[in-house]
């Protein structure tokens, strides 16, 4: 099948972001002092478990970022292929059954019949009110009442079985790799991981991975023949919508940071470094911006953007491009309204740093301002930037839902947690109640935000030793418990200190 790749604006920015992260990681690997705090992140059990879940979300988000326009089959076999106007992502193609198997209206998870009675025409001309069979959900079953449970069980068992096999393969190869790096035998590494005494908390990672794979395996095995999370008002599969929402949430969380970083970094450092009128001006700027309540400023800006987009329809060629640009604008607006906090922090830190001896020495040697800022100041404020970035992420994902509810969030055609909740919030009042869309949005969002929060916690803990956060607490608590045990355990050698 031929296709034409499409790079939307947000896609391009995601690629830029990946490039930035790769360069950053490469830099960190080369410098021991930069690597040390990341090792501490790697040694936090909750942080690594959260990272495992985040990676799963990120993979889905990335699959959903690669966009293309598939060719329309034209029978004459001409050399020139025509491309559809519909922009699809790799995730859409992988989940084609999810996307295309659209029922007529609500159906419950794993249902074989619609959720509401409908008038059905009988072949002999009469009419009955009944629950019609779904067109796709469980359509392969002859006798749904009798076969449904058994069919679901066998499919789920097959899915989880495959997932377990995959998990076993991953776990074995990781253990083998760790054993090789530590110059140990496979079994002793295995037992160390089993008892949870490796510096990198592999046990927590494996347990999390097993949970994800089991859930994912069962879901994958079932989702092509059932609507595992039901369907919404227009018959769309809720599971598919939840998967699509992940990209929107991740984008809002990451691209906003990408947008605000240049503002905050340049202005904050400039204000602290140059002081005088530059400082006054920048302080005035951020005091003014931050004195407008955030939601109101965002609402006003998005309203104005909506008007602009409505009155200039000629700027957007496809619906996808339009929705995408709106998402990008939302990120920009969120970025412009949220750089002030970080800017203030950076200004304070720079004020402190510029009085340090090494900066004064650099000034005395006649090093240029630009060089002092780029070589001495910016590297020394990066930990603040990093902590703020990871801390802000989950807040932004939550903010998207609220903004979309208020009506100033993403484009209504973009599937996001906010639009899902917005569409579903009146369904709780229906009789009988439709709960699955909210349940799906809740569980996916909760998993994403919770893991982001836990990871942010681990990062903050590693980079800012003053913070007494969850991980530190768990450590002291564990230490206390060990102290009560009669057998003192010798600390295992750090795998990092050994030559590889």
């Amino acid at each position: 099948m031929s296709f034409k790749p499409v790079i939307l604006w947000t896609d391009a920015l995601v690629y830029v972001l990946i490039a930035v992260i790769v360069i950053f990681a490469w830099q960190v690997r080369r410098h021991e002092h930069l690597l040390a705090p990341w090792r501490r992140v790697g040694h936090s059990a909750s942080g690594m478990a959260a990272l495992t879940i985040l990676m799963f979300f990120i993979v889905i988000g990335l699959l959903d970022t690669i966009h293309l326009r598939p060719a329309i089959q034209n029978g004459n076999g001409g050399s020139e292929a025509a491309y559809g106007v519909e922009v699809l992502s790799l995730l859409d193609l992988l989940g084609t059954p999810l996307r295309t198997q659209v029922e007529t209206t609500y159906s419950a998870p794993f249902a074989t019949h619609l959720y509401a009675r409908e008038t059905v025409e009988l072949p002999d001309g009469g009419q009955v009110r009944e629950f019609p069979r779904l067109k796709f959900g469980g359509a392969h079953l002859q006798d749904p009442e009798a076969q449904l449970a058994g069919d679901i069980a066998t499919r789920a068992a097959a899915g989880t079985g495959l997932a377990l096999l995959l998990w076993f393969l991953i776990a074995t190869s990781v253990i083998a790799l760790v054993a090789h790096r530590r110059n140990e035998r496979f079994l002793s590494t295995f037992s160390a991981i089993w008892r949870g005494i490796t510096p990198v908390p592999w046990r927590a990672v494996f347990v999390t991975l097993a949970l994800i794979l089991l859930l994912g395996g069962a879901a994958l095995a079932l989702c092509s023949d059932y609507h595992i999370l039901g369907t919404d008002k227009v018959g769309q599969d809720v599971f598919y919508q939840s998967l699509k929402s992940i990209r929107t949430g991740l984008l809002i969380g990451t691209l906003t940071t990408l947008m605000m970083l240049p503002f905050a970094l340049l202005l904050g450092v400039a204000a602290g470094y140059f002081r005088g009128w530059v400082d006054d001006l920048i302080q005035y700027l951020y005091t003014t911006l931050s004195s407008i309540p955030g939601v109101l400023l965002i609402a006003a800006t998005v309203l104005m953007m909506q008007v602009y987009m409505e009155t200039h329809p000629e700027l957007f060629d496809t619906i996808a491009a339009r929705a995408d640009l709106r998402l990008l604008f939302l990120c920009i607006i969120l970025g412009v309204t949220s750089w002030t906090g970080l800017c203030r922090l950076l200004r304070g830190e720079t004020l402190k740093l510029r009085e340090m001896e090494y900066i004064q020495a650099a000034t005395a040697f006649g090093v240029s301002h630009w060089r002092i800022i780029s070589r001495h100041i910016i590297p020394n404020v990066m930990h603040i930037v990093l902590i703020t970035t990871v801390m802000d992420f989950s807040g932004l994902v939550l903010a998207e839902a609220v903004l979309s509810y208020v009506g100033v969030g993403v484009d209504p055609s973009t599937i996001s947690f906010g639009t899902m909740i917005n569409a579903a919030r009146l369904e709780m009042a229906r009789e009988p109640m439709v709960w699955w869309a909210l349940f799906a949005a809740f569980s996916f969002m909760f998993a994403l935000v919770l893991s982001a929060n836990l990871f942010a916690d681990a990062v903050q803990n590693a980079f800012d030793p003053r913070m007494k956060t969850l991980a530190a607490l768990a450590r002291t608590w564990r230490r206390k418990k060990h102290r009560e045990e009669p057998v003192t355990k010798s600390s295992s050698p750090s795998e990092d200190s050994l030559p590889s």
Partner: protein
Amino acid sequence: MLNYIIRRILYAIPILVGVNLITFTLFFVVNTPDDMARMQLGIKRVTPDAIAKWKQERGYDQPLMFNNAREGLEKITRTIFFEKSVAMFAFRFGRADDGRDIAYEIRTRMLPSLAIALPVFVLGLIVYIAFALTMVFFRATYVDFWGVVLCVALMSISSLFYIIGGQFLISKLWHLVPISGYSQGLDSAKFLVLPVIIGVISAAGANTRWYRTLFLEEMGKDYVRTARAKGLPESAVLFRHVLQNALIPILTGAVVVIPLLFLGSLIVESFFGIPGLGSYTIDAINSQDFAVVRVMVFLGSLLYIVGLILTDISYTLVDPRIRLE
């Protein structure tokens, strides 16, 4: 002290001017009044006459900054900038799209907003401090650990779910209080209970964790060690010394939001159908009533700046070491 306050108020003026300029740019320069008229009247079929009429009805039929058609001072006063933006300093807010006076609406809607926001604020402060103190008292034990886990979990739930879940559980399933609505006087209490509880719970995670950190930071200070060395029991150390000292950052941090309580909360009010300023703003956003949104942005910044000044004053009241010069 008085000098300082006067100086602070004078300093607030350029900030308000800045806010005013930002809203002016947003609402009149990014999109011209013509654009807004076309948007309101429907994009497709709209005649120049209809646009002119729409603009004239709302007073947008003037030049933005300079009116060359007029003489003398009117060159400046007969402009959109002067009549729509500068007039806000005199609290002349004009009329909404439905013809009602915005200033009157704000006056009547302030009280319902306050009726929700004030109990949430006070109750929240008490609950969070109590919760945080409990965790600090049992620090490095199961209570503390699971308390923090609970906080992180609470932080990870969108406030929309608290509202939807609370409405469903308490109003629909248990039929304890009405789902939404509002009435005057004491009768309104039964409508306010649920929004207040949900307001408190939805901010519990982040605030409790923050207060816990403040308490723990205070615990590490020298005077705490001295107090323990004197032989004071842990509870006395915690409640008499740590609590009082940690209250300073907590209270002064809370003062800044007091004026903003008048604005109410956007989503809580709109979910529960409370006729406050929050739901007013939401309705304005949904019906694209730009005049109302503009006024709310201005009012919000004004109240925030008042809050900042109050914060500075409250510092001197609770901490005699701080003198404002």
